[in-house]
């Protein structure tokens, strides 16, 4: 499904603020798998997701989605295969448009947009049904501007929008981080439900070790722009939060050793 091979990306190369964000990152995800991604701040998680969605061009490497080489494709061309929910609840929706207009936009993701009306009655009924499943009472507010909703509500709608088109790959970058604990929990449950319902291949970045192990079926740890841990199945079931934390410390320590080597 997703095949990322040897991704390299350096920000501001040749300057004092040069950052090696991706250093030969490779990851393969089979169709329908739910992968959680962890790693410390600056590990390259967001950069990796951006490289997959096309928002960030890479220096070298290859991004293949569904067997198609997408390395040089712009974001909008990849959107047919990739759906995203951003960390910022305001980023995933158009605040000036109504709820139903936002949904109509997502309904046509990756499709050819023509000159028929975007929100037709049949579609409105479909949206109403879908949004009712959220249990947030939004089904009667379809023609409200989405800017009037709370962050949590908007994030829930974003998730729903991601599933309106049968996309292959769902990218979630700390999409519950900006929400209060209860709402975050609600959005996480919703995520699990939508992913299961639509059998989406999913990559979810999270800072919660608990979440990383509880949700999905495979966990990947990034460090300094590379995959340093990749567990699934039995091995993963045996893991606990403190195992992950220990591994965190270990790669950190190795990093320190690296630096020490460089300095000496």
């Amino acid at each position, binding site marked *: 499904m997703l095949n990322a091979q040897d991704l390299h990306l350096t920000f501001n190369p040749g300057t004092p603020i040069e950052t090696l964000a991706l250093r030969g990152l490779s990851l393969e995800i089979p169709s329908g798998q739910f992968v959680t991604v962890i790693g410390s701040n600056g590990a390259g998680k967001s950069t990796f997701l951006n490289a997959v969605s096309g928002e960030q061009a890479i220096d070298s490497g290859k991004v293949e989605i569904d067997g198609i080489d997408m390395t040089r494709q712009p*974001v909008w061309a990849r959107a047919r295969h990739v759906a995203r929910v951003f960390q910022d609840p305001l*980023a995933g929706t158009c605040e*000036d448009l109504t709820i139903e207009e936002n949904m109509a936009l997502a309904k046509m*993701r990756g499709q050819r947009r023509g000159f028929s009306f*975007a929100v037709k009655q049949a579609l409105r009924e479909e949206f109403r049904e879908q949004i009712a499943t959220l249990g947030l009472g939004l089904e009667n507010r379809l023609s409200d501007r989405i800017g009037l909703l709370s962050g949590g509500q908007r994030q829930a709608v974003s998730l729903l929008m991601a599933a309106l088109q049968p996309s292959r790959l769902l990218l979630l970058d700390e999409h519950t981080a900006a929400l209060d604990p209860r709402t975050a929990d609600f959005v996480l449950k919703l995520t699990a439900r939508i992913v299961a319902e639509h059998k989406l291949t999913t990559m979810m970045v999270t800072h919660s070790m608990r979440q990383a192990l509880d949700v999905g079926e495979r966990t990947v740890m990034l460090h300094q722009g590379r995959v340093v841990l990749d567990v699934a199945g039995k091995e993963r079931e045996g893991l606990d939060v403190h195992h992950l934390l220990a591994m965190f410390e270990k790669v950190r320590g190795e990093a320190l050793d690296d630096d020490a080597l460089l300095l000496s």
Partner: protein
Amino acid sequence: MSRRQPVLPMSTYTLLGALEIGLIFSLVALGVYISFRLLRFPDLTVDGSFPLGGAVAATLIASGTDPFTATIAATAAGAFAGLITGWLNVRLKIMDLLASILMMIALYSINLRIMGKPNVPLIMEPTVFNILQPEVLADYVFRPLLLIFVVLAVKLLLDGFFATQTGLAIRATGSNARMARSQGVNTGLAVLAGMALSNALVGLAGALFAQTQGGADISMGVGTIVIGLAAVIVGESLLPSRKLYLATLAVILGAIVYRFFIALALNSDFIGLQAQDLNLVTALLVTVALVLPRLRQRSIGKKGG
């Protein structure tokens, strides 16, 4: 002069004249609304595409082309100008405001080339107005009537277009380009389309202006953008709404009200304003219109719709 004035210091003739120009500028204002508000693209091309429309229409009519074809050609020329501004920004990555300024000054030369001289008069030539004009109506009555029809048709077409899938994609691009891209919208193309549409309306306005004002003049575009913006802002404070069909209506009303204010100010001898004060009046009006909504918001809390 201290001649006594009646309550409304304007004759019917002046009123209809103000309505006529207000309606023409409401097309400009709709164009400005598309670029500034929907696309969030500060576009000054308008100061060049308005006289471009006038120049193309007047030159074609003067050389014997029928006025309808000439008006359509002028609209297309406006669209093309907007397309180039968009292209400078999208493909050549020139900052939006700067791209539009470049296009604006380029158009000054282009307009002179098209006309071959600083102005092309239309005195005896046919225009869309005098061709369609019925015997029973005076020209100064018929012109605003025809314009009302044109402006309403444009408004309804725009409302419809921006409710289509393509129109929605353009609005999304202006509102949240990152989101639009992630939904598969080719945002570069959306900007080009929006800019073309915006300047097509301005070109059309220029063509109609030349045909009502007796010709095209190289300096007829000076300040078009300010008038267009003034109309948008006046309209938004008269009728604040995020609903598109109300917003387009507001913009049209804004252009007309603005024009009436100007006519009123210029016709009221007791104020003592003269034509050269127009820009000052505009600046003051825009300032008031900008401050007014904020004052209103403060008085009713933060609950605007």
